[in-house]
């Protein structure tokens, strides 16, 4: 059964190596890659079910004794992030195959990205996390410039340079953690870090926090994000904001709440303020923009703020909200980016579901995320804090309602749209509508999602005791 931990990354990895030299523009290889992604996703879902029933699964790679070899560890938190990320990658990839792949390397790159993602979510070793993280990031740098339009290549360069600086900071953080604890295993580091003085943990925690904030585009580190999203190809934007951005929120949860809980509770006020600023800034900027992808880029900055607020409040309710909101956000973003470019019957409906979900209107899944956040702000403590947070989240949602429907009007009700009668291929519309139906279904039956949230929170809090 332990092979299930290796399978998700393994299938994608092997298939990527096989498909890399082949001509990815041919539909046959595209569908083969999609099948491989589907198999990876299936393995992750099976793993998730097993982890929920029986607790974390551990494998030490290469048959080394425990404590010597690299540990691969699947727990609820990692497996849920892996499942949602792989699902988004799969949907975006199938969308692109239906539209017609334009580059030989696209399927192989998406597979490498999926391998890196599932590897980093399912590892228990800090340095191994970094290696998988670099694999998926490198694939996403190339994917950003996929259509090879000049602005996309420029965006890929900016994306690569900024994120490489972030990766280097994270690498320095790893070196610091290794120096302090003498281990690279997350559990061992978390166990030993309690004996280290807080003053030596804080700089390392700050470096790691900045590295992950760069990845998800938190407010003061967001500057690269609009440049990358504007003009990017829709499936690529969906992969970037729905799957690659999960690395950041997972990293913050894993390294903040699990490995360095003391540093997180010490820095909670800063995290809270940054989250709040991010919500307000992202929503205001999004309201004032025109282009769909630009609005959604700023919306991403705002949505990240909610995750940070939940992380700062912490506790079982806060961590659960952070996990639930990350999952909800990646589903929303994938749906919105894919549906925004489509034309024809029901494409607007799929987009509207995504827009409703971002605004947090029931019965879309965004509502579940917003409810979790409201619970979190009630947990926050003092009356003043609670009121401030509730008002903030309400105002943020109202603003997201405004920008989501401004985009809807411009993309689907404007005269340009009505004049443009050529509908997109039916299969891509069916795909977007099924994703929209999924978003509605999870919103109507949110128990599994909430269980993932509470179980992950319980797991993260276990280390504290």
């Amino acid at each position: 059964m332990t092979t299930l931990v290796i399978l998700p990354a393994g299938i994608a990895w092997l298939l990527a190596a096989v498909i890399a030299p082949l001509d990815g523009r041919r539909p046959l290889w595209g569908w083969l890659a999609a099948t491989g992604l589907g198999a990876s996703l299936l393995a992750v879902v099976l793993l998730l079910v097993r982890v929920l029933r029986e607790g974390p699964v551990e494998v030490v790679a290469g048959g080394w004794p425990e404590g010597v070899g690299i540990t691969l560890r699947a727990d609820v938190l990692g497996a849920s992030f892996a499942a949602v990320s792989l699902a988004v990658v799969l949907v975006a990839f199938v969308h692109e195959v239906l539209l017609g792949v334009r580059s030989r390397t696209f399927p192989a790159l998406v597979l490498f990205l999926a391998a890196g993602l599932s590897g980093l979510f399912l590892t228990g070793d800090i340095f191994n996390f970094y290696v998988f993280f670099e694999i998926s990031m490198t694939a996403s740098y190339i994917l950003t410039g996929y259509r090879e339009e000049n602005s996309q290549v420029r965006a890929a360069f900016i994306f690569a340079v900024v994120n490489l600086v972030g990766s280097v900071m994270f690498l320095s953080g790893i070196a610091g953690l290794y120096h302090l604890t003498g281990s690279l295993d997350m559990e061992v580091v978390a166990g030993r870090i309690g004996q280290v003085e807080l003053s030596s943990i804080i700089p390392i925690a700050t470096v790691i926090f900045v590295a992950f904030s760069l990845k998800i585009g938190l407010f003061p580190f967001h500057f690269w994000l609009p440049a990358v999203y504007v003009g990017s190809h829709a499936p690529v934007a969906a992969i970037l904001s729905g799957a690659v951005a999960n690395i950041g929120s997972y990293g913050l949860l894993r390294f903040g709440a699990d490995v360095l809980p003391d540093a997180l509770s010490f820095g909670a006020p800063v995290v809270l303020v940054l989250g709040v600023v991010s919500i307000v800034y992202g929503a205001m900027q999004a309201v004032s923009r025109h282009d769909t992808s630009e609005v959604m880029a700023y919306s991403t900055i705002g949505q990240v703020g909610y995750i940070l607020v939940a992380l700062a409040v912490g506790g079982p309710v806060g961590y659960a909200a952070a996990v639930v909101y990350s999952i909800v956000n990646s589903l929303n973003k994938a749906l919105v980016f894919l549906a925004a470019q489509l034309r024809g019957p029901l494409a607007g409906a799929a987009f509207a579901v995504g827009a409703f979900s971002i605004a947090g209107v029931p019965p879309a899944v965004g509502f579940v995320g917003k409810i979790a956040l409201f619970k979190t702000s009630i947990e926050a403590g003092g009356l003043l804090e609670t009121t401030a947070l509730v008002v903030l989240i309400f105002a943020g949602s109202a603003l997201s309602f405004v920008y989501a429907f401004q985009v809807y009007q411009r993309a689907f009700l404007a005269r340009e749209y009505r004049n443009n009668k050529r509908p997109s291929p039916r299969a891509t519309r069916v795909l977007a509508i099924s994703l929209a139906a999924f978003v509605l279904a999870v919103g109507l039956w949110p128990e599994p999602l909430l269980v993932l949230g509470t179980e992950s929170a319980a797991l993260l809090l276990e280390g504290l005791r």
Partner: protein
Amino acid sequence: MILAISVVIAVVFASGAFLVLQRDLLRVVVGIVLISNSAILFIIAAGLSRGSAPIYPIDEGAVSDPLVQAMALTALVIGSSVAALLLAVVYRLYVSHGSIDIEEIFRMEMREAEELESMNKTELDPEEEEVADERKLEKEEPR
């Protein structure tokens, strides 16, 4: 030794950061290479211990830490391959724009976008001119 190595890391990182902030894209790539190498030096420094080489059979006494060497090697491989990728992107930008100055590339793209927009305007039918005027008004309004 600690002082010496931290000064070296600081100098390498600072030179890298300075180069990343330049407009010339080649300098940016060199800056990234320097920054990633400063992190590799930092990894080595994190496990800097005196001792014999950890090769079996191990001698009596202290053994130096082999794990940091393995990490440094991995990070070096990743760093060099990413540098190659960045250089390829710079070359691609040079081929399409004939320049590797980021400001110039950006200006060129703005000009292209404007040209495209003016071309679209002239392509409109005379019948549709009314529509275009309306559209112009609509566009101005939300701002």
